[in-house]
């Protein structure tokens, strides 16, 4: 019985943690631009140096 109550308590604590994280995410604007990140991820940041080395005009 006590294991059951302990596990229930644990799952609720974890759940509330996730919920607080969600609230934080909404408040901090994580949901404002759902499209952008998937493209940003594919950007190569090193290519500036690469291109400069190639000596473009």
């Amino acid at each position: 019985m006590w294991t059951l109550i302990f596990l229930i308590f644990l799952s609720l604590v974890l759940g509330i943690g996730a919920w607080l994280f969600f609230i934080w995410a909404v408040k901090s604007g994580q949901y404002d631009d759902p499209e952008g990140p998937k493209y940003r991820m594919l950007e190569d940041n090193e290519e500036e140096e690469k291109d400069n080395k190639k000596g473009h005009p």
Partner: protein
Amino acid sequence: MANLICNHCLLSFPERDAIREEMDGSRHVFCCHGCRGVYFLIRSEGLADFYSKRDWDGPGTPAEPLKELDLNTFNEDVRETEQGREIDIFIEGIRCASCVWLNEKFLLRAKGVLSARINFATHKAKIVWDPDLISLAEILKRIQAIGYKPRPYRESEQFKARRAESRDLLVRFGTAAFLSSQLMIYSTALYAGYFQGIDPGTKIILEIIAMVLTIPVILYSGMPFIQNTISGLRHLHFTMDALISIGAGSAFIYSVYQMFIGGTVYFDTSAMIITLILLGRYIESTAKGKASETIEKLAELAPREARIVKRSRDNTKDLSTEETALVLVASLRKGDLIKVLPGEKIPSDGMVAHGESEADESILTGESRPVRKTVGSEVIGGSVNLFGTFIFEVTRTGKETILAGIIRAVEDAQAGKPRLQILADRIVGYFVPAILITSVLTTTGYILRGASLNDALMTGVSVLVIACPCSLGLATPLAVLVFTTLASSRGILIKGGEVIENTSRLDHVVFDKTGTITEGKPSLKETILLDQSMDRQYLLRIAASLENLSEHSIGRSVVGAWNGDLLPVCDFRATPGRGIEGTADNKAIVIGNKAFMKDHALIAPDHTVPIGALTFPYEQAGDTVIYMGWDNILRAIFVVSDCLREESANTVKEILLQGKRVTVISGDNRITTAAIASAACIDDVVSEMSPEGKRDYIRGLQQSGSRILMVGDGMNDAPALTEAFVGVAMGKGTDIAMESADAVLVRSDLAAIPYFLDLSLRAYRVIRQNIFWAFFYNIVAIPLAISGVLHPIIAAGAMAASSLFVVLNSLRIKKGARV
């Protein structure tokens, strides 16, 4: 002649215009020098990856010559922060992830720019810079240099409220979803316990936890529904919200009662109803938000400042040399003198006091030709001054202006427009009372048959529990989401879900003329040679060389028709409303209207037919005729007209094929309108209509039973757009037109209209099916509830089956889409 694709803007253009360039062994072609310049700038900054990364499906805006930006409109948005100065601006022309990448990279290259981040969805850029190293003007110039347009970013109050609402919905939905998922764990355990047997002590613990998890779902997440139900019931309105509150509430009360007598509980049903409905609402609000956001971006900023002329004590002094100051339009008073520069919007209604010019009033009156303004002429606020500088005296301000009158007409029409309830709401209006009656009958039936009051009441409540269709909340929003996504990929922005239903029932399409079925800007239609010894190309070249110096829209049409290089011109002089003159190729050339020719004593070469007979058919067709000549002899006639959009005729044919009537309506004169209409294959013509006249025409037709789709672009169409069953505005139209409309054609491509009609029809069919199936499973289960053998598994099963069906069915809209 073959068409080439510009390497920068992807615009297709005739081969003879090509600007070719060889670089790194590969060849490039550009449509103009602007695009070439931008291309090399981007390459020289090492950002050429932009071209391989981008994935545009259509041509973009070709690079325009840099225009001076009005810094004042940006300056008030600048904020001081710890790192430096910060501003939010909107960047026009962003179309894909590569545009975002290019802009960010290019801005960050500039010394002094600390951060530049662009929101992909809204195209809003947040830029932080160090004012000691770089100025805002330089930053904005950089954005312009690579072919994008920076604009001040402003949010209207309405827009802010919508965003706050959407965020509130997200929090409520997220909370409900989290609690429901937790709840599922315990519900599953309880279901398992039902089949395998469960220790009563464990059962009650699980049930209490389930109840604790359900309470916030109902009282926090479901609060908006409860509030709406209470306010709706006061007027005896049974809305969807009432159904949800009744369903979730009765499930909860029933479960609490069952918990105490050791029966089965329905907490999961109660929570899932609210969660699914909230999901539907959230989907709806994001779909709606996206459309209104884009419309907000398309809307031009109205003139907010005016150049007021300070009158000195010496009244005899020439007005044009007086000093001016910028003041807010709102602070203008009658009798103020306002100076208007070429290309500016006229800030208020008034009478010209000094100077002369021509004004483009097409957005207000529908008249496609520029209207001449001399001392004493009336000018209309909101129209555009074309090429002269003039000073006018304000005669009307604020609410008295013509512009304000049109806006008022739009507001009146909006208030008077009977908003059709969407299908789901109409059905719910009948369904809720029916269910309440069934529930009451069940209870009385049980009492009459001698059951205990307790059992009778609980059976009655169980009818309410099972009757509430969870997936009803998803039925419309999901279909609307698929619909708006498909529509926006074709350049149609939809403002709300009810547009689908309204559009699917249309039987009559009314087009505005200027700017809708025509391009809205004049172009050279024909060149008639009077002096046969002259070369046509040579004459056009001379005309274009002179007209190039004029800002006149008719002049621009001549320039647009000539693609070669221009001749040097000296002694250029323009006479507003009459014509221009100048010396080119050692000839004193005169171009202008008939009166201007007479002034310069130019006569026709005697061997040709009378000029009047030549030009008459064109004038009758509504075209503008201008003459060119030198040495006292007329050499050529140019016919300029507002030409039909390429796709107009085909669009009209398709709409006629769909079995709908087509009419063209215009503020322009009868002859011009009829000529354009017949070119677009439209028989039905209504002309010389004021903005209110158009609205009344639409109203009259609708009162006689027609359902009208109105397509327009101008301010003069705004009242009609609002009045019509469905209003569609052109994306290049005015902001007020876009605000009045239910949908906007972003690319101003009329060919999207037949697609829009077809898509609405299909989407509406799917919505009807969705609603049927959402109700179906629950209604089937009602007899079980009445007979008293209802079980939570059945409720959960009905919920899952109908939701799944609704989701899959909504995706079907995509399948039949022909793009």
